[in-house]
């Protein structure tokens, strides 16, 4: 070999090792582009070369300084080249391996160990190659280097084999296959249920080689014998048995078994051990010999059942991605069920754009569609022929579509159909039976499809495995109607008020009274649109309908306010926290509602005095104040109200006063319109209104002795 070739090879080797370092530092942020993935996948192929070549080179390196070889030129040169080649190949293999490891599915401890041992091989090989020409290189170093490299090579190779072929691949055929599922009718309680627990969770410490605590759990004789602390259990008495005591000790206890750090027993396993000991810990009993309702049998049965495979496997290939994209539009969504899965789901929306073409256009992906949602689409019977072409369909939603029972026979050829929803489709039982004949079908939704309950019941009986969804059935119990609603937006009016009452339940009869009595369904007036109110009124109303319980009574208050002052001002200001939007808050034709803190109320603990002016004199005969009573929050009715009036601010006379009674502890929360009637109608241009709070809160209240609050949200002038 020319020295330039050798130099090139050495350069490459150096470069490759640097590259490996970079890849290792990059770690998880490494992204292998698609075109490089095949290189990574060649790792399992190429790796055989470094194994053979590097191993041979290292064996030769090991014997390099032997007297018979030291002067053999051929031996020395060959070793040198072989080592170079081996180091090169192992570096390349490592790089490929690092690429491959970034593909999905490669994770876990084995991979990590394999990776680091593999990298060690490459570095060790290169290291030996680098130092073997220096003067400090000795026989010992040569031997040590060779041994380390070969050791790493073997370990890396072994772990790699585990990754590719699975653990215990080599010895698999000769190993005990007890893990294979045993059919329940042959299973023995001890052999197939209890022993596997011991094998997996206990035997690593309690076996013939390693008898911790003098206990061996590998055969029945040893189990019966127990360990150095005595017998393992008292047959039939789990509570007194050492085995269960140890298992049930808190994990923090030193004597808890299995020790912390080892895989713990599951609750089911603990229960199985408990029940086995309780049933006298027999070794020969069959699972099916136990009574059907025995807990041991029931838990054992679930234990023995082979794990069902979770994901469905499809035997068709994926559709063209571009084709899928092309078929997607605003009203037809085609999407893959999962990444890496060829199966597609299709949802169709918008009644007005649906026609059978929407389905026919899907013919290029008819193999791949496994789920089709046509909820509320006007699907006709004829369209079912197109649907039947989706041969791999698993799930079909035809709720509230226009198909009829007769057309459903088209679907009989769908041999994978698992679930079909026909809610709201008119069916008869014969059509349904045809569908049920599809063997794979396990869910059928037929609520609201006009089938009679007896037929459905017998259908369910004949097909116990079918989940027949019949849905809600009116149990005939009457429900209470909701109360009528007031649809008017305002509750304060100037001259007249067209009352608008409604109830969301179709056909409900709305009755009402205006005299404060509770409306009934006979004597009370029936509401019709067009009722006009001309004065402040408390309307009490209820709704009635045959087959329903009458609603609760609700009361709506509407207020007449004939005059709105042209200007208004406070004389004594309200409290800073409750000043609303100034004095105009009380003439804004908007009530404050239940929440006194919402800024629509004005309030004070002192006299609340406002003055109102009119450009033209008005005929005043009553003044109303809407106030709040909320005893818990120290809000009481004003103790007194004074109405003053006159032609201007300086000529006011006291026109009316109102006193409220002493508050009682039981007074409920209320919004109350107080009315001050004037003795005679007066021509007035200016009104002064004074609301006086309760001077001293009564002794039964937590705030006793303090003044009460007055809350006012609106004034009505008539």
């Amino acid at each position: 070999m020319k020295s330039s070739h050798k130099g090139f090879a050495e350069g490459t080797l150096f470069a490759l090792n640097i590259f490996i370092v970079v890849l290792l530092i990059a770690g998880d942020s490494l992204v292998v582009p698609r075109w490089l993935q095949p290189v990574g996948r060649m790792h399992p192929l190429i790796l055989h070369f470094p194994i053979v070549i590097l191993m041979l080179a290292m064996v030769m390196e090991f014997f390099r300084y032997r007297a018979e070889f030291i002067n053999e030129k051929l031996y020395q040169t060959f070793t040198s080249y072989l080592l170079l080649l081996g180091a090169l190949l192992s570096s390349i293999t490592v790089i490929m391996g690092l690429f491959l490891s970034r593909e999905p599915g490669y994770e876990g401890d084995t991979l990590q160990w394999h990776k680091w041992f593999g990298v060690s091989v490459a570095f060790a090989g290169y290291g030996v190659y680098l130092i073997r020409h220096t003067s400090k290189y000795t026989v010992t170093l040569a031997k040590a280097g060779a041994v380390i490299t070969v050791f790493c090579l073997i370990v890396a190779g072994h772990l790699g084999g585990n990754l590719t072929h699975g653990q215990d691949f080599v010895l698999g055929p000769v190993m005990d296959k007890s893990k294979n599922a045993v059919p329940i009718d042959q299973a023995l309680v001890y052999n197939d249920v209890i022993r596997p627990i011991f094998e997996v969770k206990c035997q690593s410490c309690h076996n013939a080689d390693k008898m911790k605590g003098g206990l061996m759990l590998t055969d029945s004789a040893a189990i019966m014998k127990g360990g150095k602390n005595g017998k393992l259990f008292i047959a039939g008495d789990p509570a007194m048995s050492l085995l269960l005591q140890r298992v049930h000790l808190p994990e923090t206890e030193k004597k808890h078994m299995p020790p912390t750090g080892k895989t713990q027993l599951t609750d089911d396993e603990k229960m199985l051990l408990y029940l086995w000991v309780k049933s006298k810990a027999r070794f020969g009993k069959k699972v099916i010999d136990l009574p059907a309702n025995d807990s041991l049998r029931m838990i054992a049965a679930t234990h023995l059942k082979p794990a069902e495979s979770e994901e469905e496997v499809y035997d068709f290939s994926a559709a063209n991605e571009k084709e899928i994209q092309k078929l997607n539009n605003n009203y037809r969504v085609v999407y893959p069920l999962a990444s890496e899965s060829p199966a597609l789901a299709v949802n169709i929306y918008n009644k007005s754009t649906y026609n059978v073409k929407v389905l026919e256009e899907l013919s290029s992906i008819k193999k791949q569609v496994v789920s089709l949602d046509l909820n509320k689409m006007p699907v006709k019977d004829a369209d079912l022929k197109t649907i039947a072409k989706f041969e791999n369909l698993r799930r079909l939603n035809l709720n509230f579509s226009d198909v009829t029972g007769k057309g459903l026979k088209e679907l009989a050829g769908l041999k994978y159909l698992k679930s079909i929803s026909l809610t709201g489709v008119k069916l008869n039982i014969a059509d349904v039976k045809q569908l049920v004949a599809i063997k794979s079908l396990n869910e059928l939704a037929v609520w609201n499809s006009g089938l009679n309950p007896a037929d459905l019941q017998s259908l369910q009986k004949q097909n116990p495995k079918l989940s027949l969804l019949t849905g809600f059935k009116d149990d005939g119990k009457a429900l209470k109607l909701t109360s009528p609603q007031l649809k008017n937006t305002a509750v304060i009016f100037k001259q007249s008020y067209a009352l608008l009452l409604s109830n969301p339940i179709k056909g409900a009869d709305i009755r009402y009274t205006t005299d404060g009595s509770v409306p009934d369904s006979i004597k009370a007036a029936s509401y019709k649109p067009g009722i006009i109110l001309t004065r402040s009124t408390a309307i009490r109303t209820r709704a009635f309908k045959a087959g329903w319980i009458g609603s609760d009574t609700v009361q709506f208050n509407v207020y007449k306010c004939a005059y709105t002052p042209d200007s208004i001002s406070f004389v004594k200001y309200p409290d800073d926290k409750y000043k609303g939007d100034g004095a105009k808050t009380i003439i804004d034709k908007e009530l404050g509602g239940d929440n006194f803190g919402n800024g629509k109320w004005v309030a004070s603990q002192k006299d609340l005095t406002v003055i109102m002016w009119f450009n033209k004199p008005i005929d005043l005969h009553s003044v109303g104040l809407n106030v709040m009573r909320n005893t818990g929050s120290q809000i009481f009715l004003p103790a007194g109200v004074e109405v003053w009036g006159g032609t201007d601010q300086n000529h006011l006379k006291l026109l009316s006063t109102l006193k409220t009674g002493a508050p009682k502890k039981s007074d409920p929360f209320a919004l109350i319109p107080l009315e001050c009637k004037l003795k005679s109608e007066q021509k007035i241009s200016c009104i002064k209104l004074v609301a006086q709070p309760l001077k001293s809160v009564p002794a039964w209240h937590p705030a006793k002795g303090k003044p009460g609050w007055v809350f006012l949200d609106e004034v009505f002038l008539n």
Partner: protein
Amino acid sequence: MEKYFLENRLNINRRRFLSRLSLGIGSVALGSLLIPDLFSGKGDEAEADFIPGIPNFAPKAKRVIYLFQDGAPSQLESFDYKPKLREMMGQELPASVRGNQILTGMTAKQASFPLVGSFYDFKQYGESRAWISDMFPHIGKIADDICIIKSLNTDAINHDPALTFFQTGAQQGNRPSMGSWVSYGLGSENKNLPAFTVLLSKGKGNGQGVYSKLWSNGFLDSIHQGVQFSSGEDPILYLNDPEGLNRHERRKMLDKLAELNDMNYKEFGDPEINTKVQQYEMAYRMQTAVPEIMDVSKESDDIVKMYGPECLIPGTYAANCLLARKLSENGVRFVQLYHQGWDQHSNLPQEMAGQAKDVDQASAALVTDLKQRGLLDETLVIWGGEFGRTNYSQGKLEKANYGRDHHPRCFSIWMAGGGIKPGIVYGETDEFGYNIVKDPVHVHDFHATILNQLGIDHKKLTYKSQGRRYRLTDVAGNVVKGIIA
């Protein structure tokens, strides 16, 4: 032999060294090509492990309806039956049970912690014999369709952080909501409706606020933001055309606007511009899709009887449940309801009865309704609040009047459909209803499980923002295998 050593030394001269060095640098450069983020500083759009819009594995559930009971309903009056508390009524909470639990400012200074049992009785329902309080008779009837989890626990003890934690996986806010993650992860099933919608209702009980940050898209594309449907004339604000503008003109306007936006996009390349165009287009299609969904007048009498007559009054919880079914049926991935008013610090027996009356019938009806349409197996329904309530009374304990403070250590929720085991009760609390004794489920585990049912590996659903990858489950979360069918 000597010759070798000499050659070797001669070989390492300056030229040789430099040429080697260049090879080394070349390798580094080559390697860097495979590490996309090395020099860019900005994350690449496509994550290696996750393609937005496609589940990692075949999903059990395609959609979620989350009935959030805002304010935290008491588990002790709903699904966690503790007769011991009645026996020990008025006695002090043992210090050994409380352990090192920190209390809220509302009861930390309370001199005594008198235990209080449920004012309401419990009954067993269904084949699962689950204990359910008398306040929830309708949910009792669907006991065999639901999975009650009694061992949820959270890190937060106050409403806002706890709620934010439940909705976004972090207590601080600014992260994407769970619905936004699902929208990002699974994409939209129906291009005429948003993938994530929000419905609010309010009971008469003591309430806590809900804010739009709870349905924020955080750092995700704004198309994943939750869209609130309100109960008034305009269910979605600003969706309707202004008066006098016909649909044809609107179309023309949108086309012109799209052209302008496209010009802008070509100049600046901001992806938010494209998002905006998409949203205009979707809004245009929503103008026809939404009125059809909001119209409940065509619902049959059976439906009204199932959900209760309140379901026809917009803005009630029952109406929202009905709406949730209609949205979900139309392919909305995540429907988030909030019902406010569950914060019973005082007056619990009376207030909670009112709240329960609001939600009991409609929640049960929603599950039944989905089931009878064959949709329950692909729709995951979740019912629950943000934490639990203490087993002792806040304030004075009277026979028929008491309150309960916040309790993060254990609380109960239920789930139905979507591949969750029906008719089981998962997890156990001690006889005081204070600590979990079996199978705890942390909020992160809850999130991991929901994503798992949707076909998403919660460790793979990531988004890179400001230099790090984020997950809904942050760095925690285990799928709760015990509740998966």
